[in-house]
């Protein structure tokens, strides 16, 4: 099955969503990501029992931090999927890309000069 999702998305594989730390997420933003999502297994189905629950809490904490430092918590999100949900994965990526496009480029990229903010403009 080949699924279409926007090409401006970079996928980083980890053994379990519980491996994703607050610092990984913050560093992604420091390095210019406009948005980051963490995708874990369905709740209750984590192979390491509670990895996705930890991930959910970390994402929540990062949301708060992003709100407090002026980036906006909407730029980060957590989703739970099972391996059979490929189409839903593509859909989530499209949704998130759409949301980020509406939000515009991250203020970090604007500040670093790698993007400019213009109404409706989408940074690739």
């Amino acid at each position, binding site marked *: 099955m080949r699924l279409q999702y926007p090409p401006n998305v970079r996928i980083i594989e980890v053994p379990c969503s519980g491996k994703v730390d*607050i*610092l990984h997420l*913050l*560093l992604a*933003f*420091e390095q210019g990501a406009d948005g980051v999502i963490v995708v874990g297994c369905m709740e209750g189905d984590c192979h390491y029992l509670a990895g996705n629950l930890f991930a959910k809490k970390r994402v929540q904490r990062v949301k*708060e*931090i*992003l709100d*407090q*430092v*002026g*980036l906006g918590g909407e730029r980060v999100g957590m989703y739970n999927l099972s391996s059979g949900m490929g189409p839903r994965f593509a859909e989530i990526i499209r949704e998130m890309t759409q949301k980020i496009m509406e939000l515009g480029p*991250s*203020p*970090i990229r*604007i*500040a*670093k000069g790698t993007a400019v903010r213009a109404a409706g403009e989408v940074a690739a």
Partner: protein
Amino acid sequence: MIKAKPKPMEEIIDNVKGFSKLLIAGCDGCVTVCEAGGLKEAKVLAAALRLYFTQGGKQAQVDETSLTRQCEKEYLAQLSDRIDNYDAVVSLACGCGIQYLAEMYDKKVVFPGVDTCFLGVNEERGLYSERCQACGRCILAETGGICPIARCSKRMLNGPCGGSEGGKCEVNKDIPCGWELIYERLKTLGQLERFETPTVPKDWTTSRDGGPRKIVREDLRI
């Protein structure tokens, strides 16, 4: 040990926003155990502050480090060759560490990055609760090993008060009544007769009421 929690980000930002070279200094002691102030927390705070400055279009340097203990000069000295690269330090140590850092580098602006709360235990990860108020003259021998000063909301020495109900304190149903705990323990130990003898007024001079305290151990001093 000492329990602390991270300060609200807004407050930290408010303190540091006028500076452009910041060092976030963690401590590997107690505050690491309660995940308020170790190297990890220093890194998170530094990353968050870098995001804050960058999005605001400000060039700022925010570095992080962590010391074995900030309540000892020997470890604080490890900062001596680089502290001058910064115009302010946010310390994530407990109130003692923060002050000792400020005392040692007296020309440096030092901000607290945590709220130091109490002397307590780890009930579980993310759940810490108070056990001792460092009164300076421990009476646990008389109270079944449970401290009425730290665990009775009114630090009564002859409790429980009339508000104790169903094992809970009158202040709040989330607080176990310290005196009910003492009662249960004394019962287990077969020492309930202790309930009948009035405990006399306590000498609080060894507590904070006596002014800033000091321990001098001549046997240890060099």
